[in-house]
């Protein structure tokens, strides 16, 4: 019975053709799946890095808004990107006077896990409209540091 079945070659081409078709399809879709898997893993690494590198920002001296202290509270190194300077309105309840940014010399500096660095700001900032701001005594500031993975930390002065 088995010998007869094996000797019968009818339909062999169809079987081989179907198997090859399935193998080729599997090859193509495995390609897409593997790419998706690699992309997801890469982004998971980014999120893990983000979760494990929270920072805090504070002004070193109550009389000097130009020197800031950035502390990395996490277990992964954090890289600094940009410092935002938001200037509140003189009268409370009104929109902020100015929102601008400053690239400190310490941009792209790495704050090692669990350590702190000092970041200097020269009192100037630019905004998206090309306007310029210079700090004047009495201005109410919100300073916000952003890291390259998108973590932010803010402090107010005074």
């Amino acid at each position, binding site marked *: 019975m088995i010998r007869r079945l094996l000797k019968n070659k009818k339909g062999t081409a169809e079987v081989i053709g179907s198997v090859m078709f399935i193998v080729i399809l599997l090859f193509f879709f495995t390609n897409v799946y593997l790419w998706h898997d690699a992309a997801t893993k890469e*982004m998971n690494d980014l999120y893990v890095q983000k979760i494990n590198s929270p920072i805090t920002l504070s002004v070193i001296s109550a009389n000097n808004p130009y020197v800031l202290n950035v502390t990395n509270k996490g277990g992964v190194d954090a890289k600094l990107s940009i410092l935002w300077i938001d200037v509140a309105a003189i009268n409370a*309840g*009104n929109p902020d006077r100015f*929102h601008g940014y400053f690239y400190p010399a310490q941009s792209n500096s790495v704050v090692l896990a669990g350590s702190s660095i000092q970041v200097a700001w020269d009192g100037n900032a630019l905004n998206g*409209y090309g306007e310029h701001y210079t700090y004047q005594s009495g201005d109410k500031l919100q300073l916000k540091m*952003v890291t390259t993975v*998108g973590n932010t930390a803010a402090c107010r002065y005074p």
Partner: protein
Amino acid sequence: MKRLLKNRKAVSPVIATVLMIMITMAGMAILFGFVISYSDAYKAGVGSSVMESLTIEDIWISPSSVPDPLHTVQLSVYNVGKVDSTITSAYVNGLALTKSGTLNLKESITIGQHMNITLNWNQAFGNGRQYTFRISTLSGSNFDLSYTAP
């Protein structure tokens, strides 16, 4: 040799086999091209949303003047993802923001770029009220930030 060339027997099966191989190869080439273009389009389109990550790093309500009849807001966005993105729409509490009267923003942002987008709302921002800002990308990702108006 001359006898072999004169003998026409089995010419037709040879042609048939050659034709069969050619048709199969053409079919496979078409299928290959389709699948490759499909996977490339997937990776560059919807698939790339996996690698998108945008951060709304700053929000400035009414940056131009006070009072502001256009209810202007400036969103500062930072691309921290692994692919370039295109921001197609922005919302406040689920209501669309517009740019020069249009809903479709088409703002491209490259990897590592900081970008400011100035938008308008059809309502006034209330002092001390909390708003949830959302930006949506061409690939279908959404990124939110809650902000309390000063």
